[in-house]
């Protein structure tokens, strides 16, 4: 589904190179996890895939179902089925959470040539999905992410994902800042979305999340590259021994 080949990325305004040849393939229906030390380039990879400004791709490609992502505008990538749950969700003062969601859902439907959801239908679906994530009506009325706790912001990202039903979901440290119960809610949210036609790329530092969302493949990223790929046992190894051995192996 997602195929990243030899991706090289540097910052637009200085010469700092962040991704130094990332190769990664995520198949439909699978869950891949990426772990790696702070600053290794995980968030950068997720931003570049979703089209954030400020990066320059110097080499390589990234395709979603064979279509080149890197040429598209961010909203086109979203309409093509890519979703990023942000490591740091953005606050938008004055814009109701509900309004934001409805605007997003209908923008994507329109871009795909589908009919928009009526206000009534939309409300029904949103209420149901919000309830599953323990997001109350009050939170839906508040401005997007403004004054939300860390955990509430992350749950809100998952709600957006549930509403947008993307096919390729990237979760950037969605587990950080979550208490044990919220972690379970988020994991349940993700598991409920798992299906044949959908794939996940879960960026995390901890095994805990992977206890709930069982990955098929685990990648280790260091210094802008995937240095090792393995099964779920790789995450356990990191949990127990840190990255020192893995990094030493490469050198």
């Amino acid at each position: 589904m997602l195929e990243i080949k030899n991706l090289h990325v540097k910052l637009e305004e200085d010469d700092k190179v962040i991704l130094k040849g990332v190769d990664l393939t995520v198949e439909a229906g699978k869950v891949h996890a990426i772990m790696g030390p702070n600053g290794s380039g995980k968030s950068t990879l997720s931003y570049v895939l979703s089209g954030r400004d400020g990066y320059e791709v110097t080499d390589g490609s990234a395709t979603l179902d064979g279509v080149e992502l890197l040429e598209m505008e961010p909203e086109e990538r979203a309409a093509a089925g890519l979703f990023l749950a942000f490591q740091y969700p953005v606050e938008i003062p004055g814009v109701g959470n509900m309004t934001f969601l409805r605007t997003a859902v209908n923008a994507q439907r329109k871009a795909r040539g589908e009919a928009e959801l009526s206000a009534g239908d939309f409300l029904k679906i949103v209420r149901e999905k919000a309830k599953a994530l323990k997001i109350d009506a009050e939170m839906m009325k508040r401005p997007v992410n403004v004054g939300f706790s860390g955990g509430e912001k992350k749950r809100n990202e998952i709600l957006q994902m549930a509403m947008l039903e993307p096919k390729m979901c990237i979760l950037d440290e969605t587990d950080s800042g979550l208490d044990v119960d919220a972690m379970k809610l988020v994991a349940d949210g993700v598991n409920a979305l798992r299906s044949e036609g959908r794939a996940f790329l879960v960026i995390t530092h901890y095994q805990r999340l992977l206890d709930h969302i069982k990955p098929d493949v685990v990648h280790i990223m260091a210094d802008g590259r995937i240095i090792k790929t393995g099964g779920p046992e790789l995450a356990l190894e990191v949990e127990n021994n840190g990255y020192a051995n893995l990094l030493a192996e490469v050198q």
Partner: protein
Amino acid sequence: MGLETEDQIEVRDGVDRETIETVQAMAGKYKHGWETEIETEYAPKGLNEDIVRLISEKNGEPQWMLDWRLAAFARWQKMEEPRWAMLNYPEIDYQDQYYYAKPKSMDAKPKSLDEVDPKLLATYEKLGIPLKEQMLLAGVEGSDEPRKVAVDAVFDSVSVGTTFKEELRKAGVIFCSISEAIREYPDLVQKYLGSVVPQSDNFFATLNCAVFSDGSFVYIPEGTRCPMELSTYFRINAENTGQFERTLIVAEKGSYVSYLEGCTAPKRDTHQLHAAVVEIVILDDAEVKYSTVQNWYPGDEDGKGGIYNFVTKRADCRGARSKVMWTQVETGSAITWKYPSCILRGEESQGEFYSIAIANNAQQADTGTKMVHLGKNTKSRIVSKGISAGRAQNTYRGLVTMHPKALNSRNYTQCDSLLIGDKCGAHTVPYIEVKNNSSRVEHEATTSKVDDDQLFYCRSRGMDEEEAVALVVNGFCKEVLQALPMEFAMEAQSLVAISLEGSVG
């Protein structure tokens, strides 16, 4: 769109959606830029005593009114155009324009809207005044309409007609054109006209005193809650013609009215002058809400054409516990010079000012308010949201004064500016004078740029760039949009977005 809403917030959410749909449906920019092909009768070009006499005569005015105009004209000739605002425009040639333009068909003095030239009625329909208003305008009362809005339709220099006059009259409310009021209710007009904005007030107000041709008059008797919203819709159609309207609202003790004002003009290459005066008198325990959506033609991308809008609006909270609330959405005009003000004379009177001023392309806006605290325990609140895009310059200019006798008074001012792009400017010029020890003035100001992270966040969820900007800007203005009556809120939200078209990318 069949909203199954459960509460106000969700209705508002629906409004937001509608905004975005409206914006997307709209290909062009200024949507009211067409003109009505109609035979127009002009007074001779230029300005002199004869023109003043002619306007007075056309309106069938009594002698006192003519004398008042002539006195104003004499004064105006000795005055100088103010230049303190942060506005840059070429000298206005006051002799090179018309001061009176009237559709020929109005000569017959139609007694009701049924007799009005269908072309004129069609103009208002096309202006996108909501259809129900249109029905109301045509004098048809839709039985299942939850809300009624009475309309006074002013076309160039004359009022074409006013709806719901009879129903209002039953409630004791007078709502008619000012020219009619001068003829029919001379005592009321004479008592209050010029009592809030004196003839000598400022260059543009004095000019208005001399040459105003029409406008609206509202009188709400003691203890009366006006049974419907009142509105005036101003349309400039004729070329090279200034519009000088005069509005006078009197709210007697314990009364209440909500009044709306809308305005548009065709696209023209030349600038057109609009110099209005609005006076509001509010007595004990009365409350007036005055909302404006100003959508005059703003000129093209290069600053060619557009309305020069020099307006004096003032409310005099004369009575104890009286209240006024100004809400304005300023999106149009090439030049905006406008400071709706509150004179808080009565004890415990309150003034509020909510404003959104958007300037795009070559537009210049210098707008704000004056809160003059004269009485004890008076309160005022100012919320101003300025948005600049393109090469536009947007200035908030506000004056808050607490007089020695205005003990224990309070003002709170919040003034936020948002910049889109890096060629525009935002300026905040607050003047504060506190002349007693028990009053307090608070002022907060922020200036920010549209945040790239917010735009990226929206776009990563599927919205295109313009939609994302519209959403973020609407969020920025939320507080003010919510102060508007529902119908206006919708129009205003879409205007916010339309005014910003082409400001990104």
